[in-house]
């Protein structure tokens, strides 16, 4: 048995998909706040489209009210599903928030699932303002609303293309003791995040790894730990 990777030990919402190649791909399910924001953006966009159609339809008399009723129907029931199938798994709101709808196995969503989850929106909305949907999302670790359960879909963050890793360059320092894989991973994790932290917070964290920093304080502790990370990466 390999030691569990650290990411499996810490609190995490990652959803793992086993692929036929024998690996697990990690998906990051999106929580209620991101999804509610996406819904709000969609609502505004749909209202905007309706307003435009209403302006045009108003000039068309009776035919205009037919156009209006059909637009209402399509925008309310079919537009989100259509976007999810034909627009890389995202409605405009989801796209703006960097979200994407996928099947449970990570593949792009198709018509049956997209239609199911968007029709069942009617139940998630009950009794008012998506209370059922919110309750369901709060009760499972994949943040699925009822429609997602039935359709077998997930709303996840779109993986950033490219992706970079940036442990700051520093002279390598060999650690004073052998590190387990989980410990090595923690040091690398720290080194990558150190750029985003304030110097004070970085030092505070670095000082915790006292056996590695040799009791150095403040910026010196950060520097030493980044040196160890450079050694682990195999840099000179």
């Amino acid at each position, binding site marked *: 048995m390999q030691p569990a990777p650290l990411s499996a030990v810490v609190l995490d919402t990652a959803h793992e998909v086993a692929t036929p*190649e024998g690996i697990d791909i990690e998906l990051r399910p999106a929580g209620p706040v991101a999804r509610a924001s996406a819904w709000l953006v969609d609502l505004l966009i749909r209202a905007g489209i309706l307003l435009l159609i209403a302006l045009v339809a108003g000039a068309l008399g*009776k035919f205009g009210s037919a156009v209006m*009723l059909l637009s209402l129907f399509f925008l309310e029931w079919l537009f989100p599903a259509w976007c999810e199938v034909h627009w890389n798994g995202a409605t405009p709101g989801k796209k703006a928030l960097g979200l994407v709808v996928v099947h449970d196995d*990570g*593949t792009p969503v198709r018509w049956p699932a997209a239609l199911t989850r968007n029709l069942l929106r009617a139940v998630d909305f009950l009794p008012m303002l998506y209370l059922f949907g919110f309750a369901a999302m709060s009760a499972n670790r994949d943040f699925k609303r009822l429609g997602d359960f039935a359709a077998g879909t997930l709303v996840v963050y779109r993986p950033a293309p490219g992706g970079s890793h940036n442990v700051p360059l520093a002279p390598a320092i060999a650690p004073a003791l052998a590190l387990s894989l989980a410990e090595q991973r923690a040091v690398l994790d720290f080194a990558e995040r150190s750029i985003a932290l304030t110097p004070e917070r970085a030092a505070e964290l670095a000082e915790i790894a006292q056996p590695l920093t040799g009791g150095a304080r403040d910026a010196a502790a950060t520097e030493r730990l980044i040196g160890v*990370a450079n050694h682990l990466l195999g840099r000179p």
Partner: protein
Amino acid sequence: MKQAAFEAVHESDWQEFERLLGDDKATAPGNVDFPRLYRRICQQLALARDRAYGPGLVDRLNALALRGHRVLYGADGIRRNQLAEFFLRQLPRVVREELRLVLAAAALFFGPLALVALALQVYPDFVGYLLEPRQIADFQQMYDPANPRPGMREADSNVVMFAYYIWNNVKIGFQTFASGMLFGLGTIFYLVLNGLRIGAAAGYLTHIGFGVPFWSFVAGHSAPELSAIVLSGAAGLRLGAALVAPGRLTRRAALAAAARRAVQLVYGAAALFTLAAFIEAFWSPLQLLPPQTKYAVGAALWAALIAYLALPGRHRAR
């Protein structure tokens, strides 16, 4: 192998894969370079995780593998005429396989409908409990034998009515389906409610002697519209049944499996609703034809519908 050396060796693979991901031709089915490189990325991701390389590198490989997985396993493959295949064979098949639920939905809908329609012949005042006075007045105006265009109020035009039927009736169908998530109770509620409403209108108008304009108006679209309501109901009951009696599956798995079948019934219902809206808006109000012709067309459509649901797709396509 240290991470820096690993990166130096494989960086070209990653850049090549990134390039392929942005290229529709390179990821088309049948192109072997893409799956080959994808499998290599998968192996490198497994190695990188196992060796506890930095999270930045693991995330990058994970993102590459994920995008490759989406392209490879989300590919449409080569399936033609899916839509035709669905309506010519698959839909009747699903309806027959779910016959018990279809019959249950039909009973929940037609039962109250017939009961109320008959009861109103004996106790006509009962209509006051089922319809609002305003609705009764509307129906009276619409189906008055003196109205030159039965089924429509004065200001309505065919196109507007078509749009209205789509907007209103398909919505009712979708609601009937979706509320099956409430352990089937919502579906039962909508089926019975719509049965009562339609039965009340039919019974009341027949009783006050407006039967001919009413029945000749509804005959044409009755087959597609009423069967669409029943199919929506069957789809909703399918969801509810999975939640009430999941069998040997977990409720979650049973629901997902039920939804995959139910949504096919919803496709069928939506198509029938659309057909019904066309007939109701453009054929049913026609005044030139004698009622007998309209009854005959209505009966023919019922026969055609039953034949369509009963016969095609009995043999597997070769």
